């Protein structure tokens, strides 16, 4: 491309130099003549330049003639291209569609990649925003969860951050607006939070140091709400200012509305100020997330080095920090890190489709160029230079690519919408994805590259024809050169090989997805309705806690009485599809307490009686919770088999006592239940301790109901029932099935999109095989006619063509399988219990491509076999 431009530039420079010399010569001669006529030199010079008029104007006028000539030739070329493209509209539509598809798919995927991965986060100086995280040296992994005391130490000892802030989020809180309650995602943030993100409010003001409660007992009085939330509940951002919202019984005044689009952390609706707890025991509690803005003179490396030193110091000083260090990660990387695999796989897949598309187009154009041998030879004979012919063919490709680029862009706009609809809802920034200027540039760039790629090769090829040869052979059926036949075969082989890679990838993802879908969860997910609720209570107010317990007991009691409901229960933490819960330490009665990191760890879930019955989780030993498990009775617990195995190897777990810390009451293990994959079907079960929610201070519960009724009607019944018990409790309905599906959103997205691309690739490869063979049959019609006339059967001719086609496909398959074996290793992280070298997938790919290719060879073969020798030979 640059070489072409340089060539262009050099030519222009030479023209300019020439013109300059020519005009100077004219001037000088005139001056000489005037001096000869008796004028003195300065006078002569003045006279000459008056006569000449402006040199610049003359130059400009001359340049105009150059441009006009160029435009004239271009117009001619374009007109000619249009004519020849419309003349063979079958070719044009086919090639255009292939190209538009390739460009459209590429631009659409690039739009998503561009927005989600490449565009900086939509905050001022976003590249200086970092996530400051806890690095666990026993696992080598960093976690966003940090403890309050740690954070305060980091803040005191570091100097690389302009600002630092803590936040924690609490999704789906009940927010009271007057007497009604709605769901809202709460964000609790420290003083500098909005400053870290460089935010300005839409209206009002943002939270600052003076809004933070003075001590642990004080309550926040101010809140900031998200723009969309203000509009949804108050009509506009301005209308929200001064309104009172109540969260957990604590009334706050809305003092500001954040700028539209700002939702950090997660999808926060309401921000309230908080003071990070600094009590020593909280060093092992990691509820917060820390963000910081690097100082202008501090780069990431320096920040990491400093925080590593601070982490080492804290690890020496506090026993709780023995296994903890600190790490700094760019915020963008933190937010998009786990998507990169998915998106880059999509990007590569779509790139491969594009390559196949280009090979296809090149093939079509090559075949066409060969078919036009006579036309081109004629043009050359009539005096068109080689450059002229190349330019002619190139213009044709350009016109085609231009139209296809436009069509591709339109297609991409539609695909982007489809992708946004198909993509997992929690794909960050998916709502920001749209076709924009970089994408337009990308689409046009792609069509340009395609042009050069597929336009230049046939153009050079087509012009390297021997005139006499082409003219002698007569008809448009002149045989293409051997070289061009080889090139076309090579292109088909490449197409087949590339589509093998895609088909293998798609196959592996599909098998992995199917395995995931049918993984044994340890519970029965169908026919379970989930009602997520929040019962807001004021902190530490006994009556509130009591009325909450009564509310849930009441609702569950009445739900169980509904005909068609076979079991109903509640669970405090709805696992499926949510962020995993961090495990906590447990102490076992009669054993040394041990040090942090050495005690058995387990997730703690508060549930009601009948939870196991509702989800059909087998009870292996002991009993379920029941109505006798009240706060007054001894605390009891049920553990899963993994916990029983890891914490009590070789001994009976029933009857053992465990507790969460040295002040907590002992809980007696009264039951052991089967393991479940409650959060993520791809993750094996972790140790779990179940506590009876009726024995603690209680929680807001998600209500589960196993039912034979349809979802809608049971949801309606439950809503009425809850409304009667307490009209202010907000509720959201889902089915366990749908929650399970949402955990598979990413694998499904990957599988669907790659599967689609693989299908397109296989189709394109088949079209490639078909077009090459069809062309070949056209070229050799005479030969086949002669063969038939000399006694060859239809089967012989079919065998000849099919054999030729399948040879190409076989070479492509071998090359493709070899590359796929190499590429598949990169997929390991995306596969669940499927080896990247899964034999079935590879065999399946061979079967699919083989049969598609066979089909593609059959049509031309049958055509060749049905040639009537008499007619053809007569024609000649």
């Amino acid at each position, binding site marked *: 491309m640059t070489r072409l431009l340089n060539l262009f530039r050099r030519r222009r420079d030479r023209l300019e130099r*020439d*013109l300059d*010399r*020519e*005009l100077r*010569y*004219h001037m*000088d*001669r*005139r001056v*000489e003549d005037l001096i000869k006529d008796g004028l003195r030199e300065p006078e002569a010079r003045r006279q000459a330049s008056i*006569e*000449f*008029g*402006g040199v610049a*104007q*003359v130059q400009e*006028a*001359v340049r*105009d*003639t*150059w441009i006009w*000539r160029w435009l004239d030739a271009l117009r001619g070329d374009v007109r000619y291209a249009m004519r020849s493209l419309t003349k063979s509209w079958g070719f044009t539509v086919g090639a255009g569609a292939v190209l538009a598809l390739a460009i459209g798919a590429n631009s659409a995927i690039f739009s998503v990649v561009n927005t989600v991965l490449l565009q900086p986060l939509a905050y001022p100086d976003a590249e200086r925003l970092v996530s400051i995280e806890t690095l666990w040296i026993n696992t080598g992994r960093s976690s966003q969860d940090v403890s309050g005391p740690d954070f305060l130490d980091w803040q005191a000892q570091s100097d690389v951050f302009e600002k630092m802030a803590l936040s924690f989020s609490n999704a789906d809180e009940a927010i009271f607006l007057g007497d009604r309650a709605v769901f809202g995602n709460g964000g609790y943030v420290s003083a500098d939070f909005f400053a870290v993100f460089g935010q300005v409010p839409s209206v009002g003001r943002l939270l600052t140091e003076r809004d933070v409660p003075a001590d642990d007992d004080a309550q926040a009085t101010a809140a900031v709400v998200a723009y969309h939330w203000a509009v949804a509940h108050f009509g506009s951002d301005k209308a929200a200012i001064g309104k009172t919202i109540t969260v957990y019984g604590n009334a706050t005044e809305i003092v500001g509305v954040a700028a539209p689009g700002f939702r950090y952390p997660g999808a926060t609706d309401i921000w309230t100020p908080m003071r990070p707890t600094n009590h020593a025991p909280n060093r092992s509690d990691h509820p917060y997330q820390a963000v910081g803005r690097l100082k202008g003179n501090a780069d990431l490396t320096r920040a990491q080095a400093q925080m590593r030193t601070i982490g080492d110091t804290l690890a020496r000083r506090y026993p709780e920090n023995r296994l903890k260090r600190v790490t700094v990660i760019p915020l963008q990387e933190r937010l998009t890190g786990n998507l990169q695999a998915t998106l880059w796989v999509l990007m590569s897949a779509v790139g491969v489709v594009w390559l196949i598309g280009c090979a296809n187009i090149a093939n079509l154009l090559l075949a066409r160029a060969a078919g036009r041998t006579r036309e081109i030879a004629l043009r050359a004979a009539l005096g068109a230079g080689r450059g002229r012919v190349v330019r002619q063919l190139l213009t044709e490709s350009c016109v085609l690519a231009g139209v296809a680029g436009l069509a591709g862009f339109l297609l991409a706009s539609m695909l982007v919408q489809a992708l946004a609809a198909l993509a997992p809802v929690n794909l960050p920034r998916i709502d920001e994805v749209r076709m924009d200027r970089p994408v337009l540039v990308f689409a046009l760039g792609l069509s340009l590259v395609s042009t050069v790629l597929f336009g230049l090769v046939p153009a050079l090829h087509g012009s390297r024809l021997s005139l006499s040869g082409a003219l002698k052979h007569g008809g448009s059926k002149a045989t293409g050169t051997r070289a061009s036949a080889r090139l076309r075969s090579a292109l088909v082989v490449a197409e087949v090989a590339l589509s093998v890679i895609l088909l293998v990838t798609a196959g592996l993802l599909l098998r992995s997805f199917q395995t995931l879908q049918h993984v044994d969860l340890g519970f029965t997910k169908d026919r379970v309705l989930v009602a997520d609720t929040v019962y807001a209570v004021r902190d530490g107010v006994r009556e509130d806690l009591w009325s909450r317990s009564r509310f849930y007991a009441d609702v569950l009691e009445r739900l169980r009485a509904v005909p068609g409901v076979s079991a109903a229960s509640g669970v405090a933490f709805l696992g499926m599809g949510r962020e995993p819960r961090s495990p906590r330490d447990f102490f076992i009665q009669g054993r040394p307490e041990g040090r942090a990191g050495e005690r058995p760890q387990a997730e703690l879930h508060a549930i009601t009686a009948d939870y196991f019955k509702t989800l059909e989780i087998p009870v292996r030993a002991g009993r379920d919770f029941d109505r006798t498990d009240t706060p007054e009775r001894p605390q009891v617990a049920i553990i899963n088999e993994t916990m029983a195995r890891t914490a009590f190897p070789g001994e009976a777990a029933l009857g053992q006592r465990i507790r969460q810390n040295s002040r907590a009451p002992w809980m007696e293990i009264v039951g052991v239940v089967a393991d479940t994959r409650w959060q993520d079907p791809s993750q094996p079960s972790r140790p779990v301790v179940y506590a009876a929610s009726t024995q603690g201070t209680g929680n807001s519960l998600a209500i589960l109901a196993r039912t034979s009724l349809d979802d809608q009607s049971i949801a309606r019944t439950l809503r009425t029932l809850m409304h009667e018990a307490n009209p202010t409790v907000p509720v959201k309905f889902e089915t366990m099935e749908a929650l399970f599906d949402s955990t598979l959103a990413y694998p499904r997205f990957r599988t669907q999109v790659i599967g689609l691309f693989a299908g397109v690739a296989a189709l394109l490869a088949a079209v490639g095989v078909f077009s090459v063979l069809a062309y070949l049959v056209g070229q050799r019609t005479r030969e086949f006619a002669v063969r038939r006339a000399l006694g060859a059967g239809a089967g012989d001719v079919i065998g000849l063509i099919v054999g030729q086609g399948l040879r190409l496909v076989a070479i492509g398959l071998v090359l493709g399988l070899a590359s796929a074996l190499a590429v598949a290793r990169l997929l390991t992280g995306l596969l669940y219990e499927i080896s990247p070298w899964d034999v079935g997938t590879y065999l399946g790919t061979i079967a699919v491509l083989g049969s598609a290719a066979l089909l593609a060879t059959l049509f031309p073969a049958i055509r060749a076999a049905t040639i009537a020798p008499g007619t053809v030979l007569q024609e000649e």
Partner: protein
Amino acid sequence: MASARFPIPQGTLDMLILHVLSLEPAHGYAIAQRVQQISRETVRVNQGSLYPALHRLEQKRWLKSEWHQSETGREAKFYTLTRPGHQQLAREKASWDQLTAAVRLIFNEGTQA
């Protein structure tokens, strides 16, 4: 006769250039001088139209150009009439003759009436 000098229409200039070059190859300055001399200084060639015309004619392949030494010893760009250029000149002369004859007829008609 200096006051009677007038610029000439473009089509006519093209024809004059072709004619001058049909006598012998010449560079731009010489072409301008010759047109002026032959027309006894009546026709004045404007540089602003001469050079664009030369380049246009060259692009139509009626002229070709070459750099070689001029009568003063300096390198100058010499234009030569090509075969298509000769044909073009013949065509233009023919149509010019027709046109002038027609105009003359009309004028004579006018005086007779």
